[in-house]
């Protein structure tokens, strides 16, 4: 077999293999049993909680990566659209962070409640992957829905009644 034909065969085989591997990853991901998110402080490290401790009517959680300027900008946009202490209460979840976040980086978030996802629950157990999304929970911490990043949050959070729970893909 000449060299050109061999190289062609190798590239064709490699492409097909990559396609099949990607398909295999997708099947494994889609058939994996992901947990339904739950607002449970016991699963996360509370690194800051300066807000009112009274019972909230509802909660929203925004996962942010401290090294991602885009999702920090999303957090700023959300904070600008809300008054401090307003409902639903906001929990900022620091994700994909192996070391404990420094007090300076936590202060930089300017949020009343900040949790650190030390165990990788958001990604590894819930199967979520997009920073800056908004997870909504009811007063008891039961999951309601997830709004995609850069969604019109302020309108959605103020005008939308809380529907019944259930994980959405």
């Amino acid at each position, binding site marked *: 077999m000449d060299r050109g034909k061999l190289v062609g*065969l190798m*590239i064709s085989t490699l492409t097909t293999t990559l396609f099949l591997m990607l398909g295999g*990853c997708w099947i494994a991901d889609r058939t994996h049993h992901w947990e339904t998110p739950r607002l449970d402080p016991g699963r996360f490290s509370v690194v800051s909680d300066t807000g009112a401790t009274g019972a909230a009517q509802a909660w929203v959680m925004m996962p942010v990566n401290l090294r991602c300027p885009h999702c920090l900008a999303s957090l700023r946009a959300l904070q600008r659209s809300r008054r401090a202490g307003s409902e639903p209460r906001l929990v900022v979840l620091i994700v994909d962070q192996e070391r404990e976040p420094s007090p300076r980086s936590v202060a930089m978030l300017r949020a009343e409640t900040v949790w650190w996802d030390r165990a990788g629950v958001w990604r590894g157990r819930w199967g*979520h*992957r997009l920073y800056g999304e908004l997870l909504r929970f009811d007063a008891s911490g039961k999951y309601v829905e*997830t*709004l*995609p990043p850069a*969604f019109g949050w302020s309108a959605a959070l103020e005008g939308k009644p809380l529907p019944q729970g259930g*994980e959405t893909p």
Partner: protein
Amino acid sequence: MDVPIRDERRATGLRWPFVPWALPFWYLGLAVGWWRASIQDLRLGVHAGATVSSLALVLALAGKLTGWLIESTFYHSFWKARGRRLPFWRFFCVVASASIADLFAHAIAASVHRSPSHGPWLAWVAGAQLARGPAWLSTPALRAMLGTMGVLTVVRLSITAWAQRAALGLAFARALAWTALFWLMSRVALFFAVDLTSGMSPLPKG
């Protein structure tokens, strides 16, 4: 061993679409077209009226160029593995040129975004994503996979198949069948990639 470039004309029926001196201008025109289309795409991705960084534009254009190179390399290798020779740079020129069909689809999509009253028939031409509310296209990953499918996609695939027919002496139907299969595989791969990237997180619809 590769056939030297000077022998290509005798080895294949696929000719350069232009005289050689016009090729740089042709590629420049394509680059400008895709540059402008990328500005529209990136503005939609951020928010209307935002300025788009030059780096993002250069990356978008580099991505387009890489896509053409990968597509040309794949077809070149596929036929080489079967003992046939598809001249790489001529085929690359056809692949890049056929992307004009996608540019037309972009322009039509932009006009539909500006004037949503334009007929839904445009979806048949420029892509199913322009149609209002087909439920099967509601998932962003499915939109990424099949949203651009329309008459202009068929035109682009037909041009690619025609180039293979001309270069390799295949029946057009056979060349089109292979091309359609590879296109479908690339769209399925895109679906997998988009869906894996988002996981259980919802993507913005639109």
